[in-house]
């Protein structure tokens, strides 16, 4: 089979031991199969090389980079302001979060602080975006496991969020909502009312998703004890976000290192116990409800005042370096910026949650079946734009 196009044995792949001579495939022999980059369940262009024994997964190897655009390198040749829209293109389903992290990082570097009103707007939009991201995750994850219908329900409701974004800043997906030092736009007339309407609209919808899935026997069988990762393993692998919290670690940067206005709100950190796919599902569903709580508080208490801090037209942060991270929907999104005092970053490094969480894939799927690989890829909630940058 050496001349077959599926042969990958010429690649030096570390943990798969692909160098062993190919044997005819009986159950004692391994089957090497390429999942992706063109595959319906790899959420874009992830390529997973699976080493199978029958249908049992003996090992995986992720091949990434099909969507690499050199975002970090681009940052070195753009001014701080010019680079701001680029971060939206990383995790494009949670563009607002990306923008928040970047703006706050640069603000920290420049030692300015956004005004209170801007912070509240940021929180509202970011939490809305978290709900949108989780909704998209839920739809695609359920689709991967074979439930087609939730996808359309979640997309219907995500649409309302995107409408709010569109009204606020004119864009739906890659919003570029925030600026360094605050927000560019004041909220439009009726913003608060619409957000409140959305809150009352979406709360029963989340119940609706849960009705479809949470007690569904097949859903439980497909997700319980699938892709289990222990708290220790998760921490060792640097996993963050809902995946970590589902393993029972109560770690949320919104509480641990409050940024924006998060210290002023009252919300819980939902955690799981088993660290399996079902717990991750429950954690994310609970997170959507917590986000609603945060938004409600923020909308009710939103202060009046300016929305932009005093920031010079040409941003020239002092020499130094900064690491700032926020709790993006998928986990810890960190920006490490080295400034040499010029208008452009000397070096900018992103710590994308998807990329780090993807490391856990191998740990999670070893010994499971092919169908579980799909479920686990879905449950990690990766966005390839962010993995590859």
């Amino acid at each position: 089979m050496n001349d077959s196009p599926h042969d990958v044995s010429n690649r030096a792949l570390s943990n798969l031991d692909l160098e062993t001579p190919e044997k005819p495939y009986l159950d004692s022999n391994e089957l090497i199969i390429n999942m992706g980059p063109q595959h319906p369940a790899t959420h874009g262009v992830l390529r997973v090389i699976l080493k199978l024994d029958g249908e049992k997964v003996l090992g995986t190897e992720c091949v990434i980079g099909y969507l690499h655009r050199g975002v970090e390198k681009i940052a070195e040749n753009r001014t701080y302001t010019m680079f701001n829209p680029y971060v939206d293109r990383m995790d494009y389903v949670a563009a607002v979060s990306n923008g928040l992290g970047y703006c706050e990082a640069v603000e920290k570097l420049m030692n300015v602080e956004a005004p209170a009103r801007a912070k509240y707007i940021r929180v509202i939009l970011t939490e809305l975006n978290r709900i949108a991201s989780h909704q998209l995750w839920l739809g695609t994850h359920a689709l991967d496991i074979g439930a087609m219908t939730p996808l359309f329900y979640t997309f219907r409701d995500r649409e309302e969020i995107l409408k709010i974004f569109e009204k606020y800043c004119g864009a739906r997906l890659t919003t570029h909502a925030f600026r360094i030092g605050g927000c560019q736009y004041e909220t439009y007339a009726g913003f608060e009312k619409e957000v409140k309407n959305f809150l009352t609209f979406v709360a029963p919808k989340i119940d609706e998703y849960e009705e479809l899935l949470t007690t569904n026997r097949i859903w439980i069988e497909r997700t319980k004890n699938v892709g289990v990762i222990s708290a220790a393993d998760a921490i060792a692998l640097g996993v963050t976000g809902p995946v970590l919290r589902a393993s029972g670690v109560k770690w949320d940067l919104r509480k641990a290192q409050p940024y924006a206005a998060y210290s002023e709100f009252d919300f819980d950190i939902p955690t799981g116990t088993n660290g399996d796919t079902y717990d991750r599902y429950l954690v994310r569903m609970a997170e959507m409800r917590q986000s609603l709580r945060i938004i409600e508080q923020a909308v009710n208490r939103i202060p009046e005042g300016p929305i932009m801090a005093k920031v010079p037209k040409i941003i020239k942060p002092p020499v130094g370096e900064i690491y700032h991270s926020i709790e993006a929907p998928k986990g810890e999104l960190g920006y490490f910026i080295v400034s040499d005092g010029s208008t452009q970053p000397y070096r900018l490094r992103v710590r994308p949650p998807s990329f780090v969480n993807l490391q856990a894939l191998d740990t999670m799927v070893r010994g499971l079946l092919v169908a579980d690989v799909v479920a686990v890829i879905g449950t990690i909630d990766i966005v390839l734009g962010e993995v590859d940058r």
Partner: protein
Amino acid sequence: MIPITTFHYLVVAAALFVLGVIGVLTRRNVVIVLMSIELILNAVNLNLVAFSRMWGNLHGQVFSIFVTVDAAAEAAVGLGILIAFFRNKETINVDEIDLLKW
């Protein structure tokens, strides 16, 4: 047109039987040898059913059902042996199965 008699069926059965015997005696591939055995058993079945019709009782048909049961058992065990063998020797050729141990 001559009517079809028992004899006609016997000729067909004999032809299938001989084909099966040729397959068993000459082919190397175990799977095909097993399939040839199925051919032989089918030829026997055809004979039994034809005789059953000739004598007007059902003993032949009942017997052919027993033969079918036997064929199923034979296929299961034969293919089981084949898989076990293939796992150890990685060959499915009859003439390479010439050791009594592995």
